[in-house]
């Protein structure tokens, strides 16, 4: 793929040095809970895959596809808070080369370990591939002619794909990230899972308590959001979906940093939920597993406090509660909102833009009880790039590339 490697120069926008941001990107990509996250060099871009990572809030990467031959300028934009920095990368790729490898992101992090030092001393970063020795070489060109070379071994990676279809999801809503962040802040950070219950006009968010024993000790928190807090709210199926809150929080952090609205696609319990963050240059799809139906059935058979699709809203009722309280359910008023937008999950050429989507696979752990729901791990975050129209590129043919997610081959021992 990249024989000559990529040269990167600082575009000198709002930040003086770019190496630190590259490092931050890598660090941000792995987050605190990163397991064997991978940094994949694909034929058209670098992908940071924070497998099980909670935070990717600092990186917003734009990719431009690389032609089979010739060199192309790649722009990486890193965003941290309200600061922006843009870097230029130059790719040089021989025709027909298609390469995929896998690196532990922590190895890449060690290359960019000390930000302060990097800031002061490093001028350029050169990344080259040595296929004979199965190595990726990072060379830091520092001041005074100093060269620091890091050789990182990589592994071949396979790709597995899981299929999901956003269009077929019964329930869709879109909200500004702030709304969702303000919702999850009410739940303790140690909470594993959260349940969304949907009706025509409202959404209830509750903490999910697994054991009966825990129910008597745990604080049960419930928050109700009205449909008009959402940019779009279209619910066809009234049900309850439970998924992992920790991953959700991480994704919301990312969404908040980009300022983009978050669209959520939900279906039956057991089907994955998809969170989508889209704008003109990127589309990110986050797929989370959910608890399946039979889990709910088992729970409701067990406990007296069965799941209700319309939990009571007795706050507005100002009468005093008797010790033995009667639950009353509230009626949701008002008409429902407009038609859902149709998002093409995958668009084929000859459109100048193309989008790719994330695939993720729910891990099947053979040792687990087959009745238990699949492990709710968030697998990968992939940013597809969309080409802006450009006179230089318009004459060239584009081939749609099918992008596959990283494999689920992760060493459990290495997981954080």
């Amino acid at each position, binding site marked *: 793929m990249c024989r000559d490697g990529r040269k990167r120069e600082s575009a000198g926008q709002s930040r003086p040095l770019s190496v630190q941001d590259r490092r931050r990107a890598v660090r941000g990509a792995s987050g605190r809970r990163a397991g064997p996250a991978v940094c994949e060099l694909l034929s058209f871009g670098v992908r940071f895959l924070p497998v099980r990572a909670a935070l990717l809030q600092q990186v917003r990467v734009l990719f431009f596809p690389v032609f089979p031959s010739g060199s192309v300028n790649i722009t990486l934009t890193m965003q941290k808070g309200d600061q922006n920095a843009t870097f230029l990368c130059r790719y040089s790729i021989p025709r027909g080369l298609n390469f995929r490898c896998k690196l532990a992101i922590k190895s890449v992090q060690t290359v960019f370990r000390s930000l302060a030092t990097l800031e002061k001393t490093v001028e350029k970063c050169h990344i080259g591939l040595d296929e004979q020795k199965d190595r990726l070489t990072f060379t830091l060109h520092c001041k005074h002619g100093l060269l620091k070379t890091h050789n990182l071994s990589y592994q071949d990676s396979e790709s597995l794909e899981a299929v999901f279809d956003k269009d077929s999801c019964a329930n869709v809503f879109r909200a500004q990230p702030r709304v969702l962040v303000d919702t999850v802040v009410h739940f303790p950070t140690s909470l594993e899972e959260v349940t969304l219950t949907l009706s025509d006009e409202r959404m209830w968010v509750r903490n999910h308590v697994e054991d009966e024993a825990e129910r008597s000790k745990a*604080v049960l928190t419930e928050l109700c959001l009205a449909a008009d*807090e959402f940019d779009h709210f279209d619910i066809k199926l009234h049900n309850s979906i439970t998924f992992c809150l920790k991953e959700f929080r991480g994704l919301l952090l990312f969404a908040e940093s980009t300022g983009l609205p978050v669209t959520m696609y939900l279906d039956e319990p057991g089907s994955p939920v998809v969170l989508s963050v889209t704008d003109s240059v990127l589309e990110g799809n986050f797929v989370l597993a959910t608890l399946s139906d039979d889990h709910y059935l088992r729970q409701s058979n067990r406990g007296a406090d069965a799941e209700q699709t319309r939990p009571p809203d007795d706050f507005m009722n100002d009468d005093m509660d008797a010790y033995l309280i009667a639950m009353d359910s509230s009626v949701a008023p008002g008409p429902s909102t407009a038609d859902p937008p149709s998002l093409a999950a995958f668009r084929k050429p000859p459109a100048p833009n193309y989008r790719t989507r994330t695939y993720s696979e729910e891990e099947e752990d053979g040792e687990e009880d087959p009745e238990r729901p699949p492990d709710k791990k968030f697998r990968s975050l992939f940013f597809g790039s969309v080409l802006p129209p450009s006179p230089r590129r318009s004459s060239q043919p584009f081939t749609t590339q099918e992008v596959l997610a990283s494999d689920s081959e992760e060493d459990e021992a290495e997981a954080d």
Partner: protein
Amino acid sequence: MKFRGKIIDVACLNHFTRVVTTISKLTKTCVLRLTPDNLFFILSGKVTNGGVGMWCELLQNNFFDEYQMEGVSSEFNQICLEVSPENLSRALRTVQCAKSVKIKLTKKHCACLTVAAELPTLSSASRVVTHDVPVEVIPRRLWQEFKEPVMPDFDVSIYLPPLKMLKNVVDRMKNLSNFLVIEANLNGEMNLKIQTDLVSVSTHFKDLGNPPWGEDASQDGGPSQRGDPELLAEATVDIRKLQQFLVGQQVNPTKAMCSKSNTLKLTMKIKCSAGGSWTH
């Protein structure tokens, strides 16, 4: 049994939350006693060999805009609940920006204190968040454990220096020894001393002032302070317990006093501007 209280004022909510948070740092569970005029957070003192008891009295009027309760019966118009202050504190902390907060006794899967808050939103409907904090109702036969502690016969009672300063001193001393000797006299002088094989450290405070008797409403005007004003009464306490008490203090007290009685009890009393008072 019914209880329903509503807090609308942000400052009151904030103050109440800080009180609960302070308590949560001192103990994992405590008793909440509700009467028509007051709320009490009580940790029944097992005051043998360094045990700690706590009594916190809050005037409901200072916090709640609406407050209604009905006790077990008209004769015993109280409610006693065992609650985890940590849970309550967490629930309250997330709703500091609320337009109003209601706390009520409810029965969901078990008896709960429900904290229900109305949050401001940009849209027309306001967002409602409820936290159901599980509690256990304490039967009437156990209530005598939670009566107000009687202030014992004092040798010396003295106002404390600013708690932050005290905390700093105690923090440093904790590294050196496990036990701290507190001396105080009726002249407003207080010493904190530690003694080890290698070193002895003492910190002296002057002009602290002594509370006059009869000023505190909860005391029944006990015996007058007597004895030589220069005489130092002394008490040895476990530093870690003292530190735990000081660390938890989040409310800004107007007065804090420490009283030592000859029955080996050290009582720290903190009076807060909003009319809550602690005894520890």
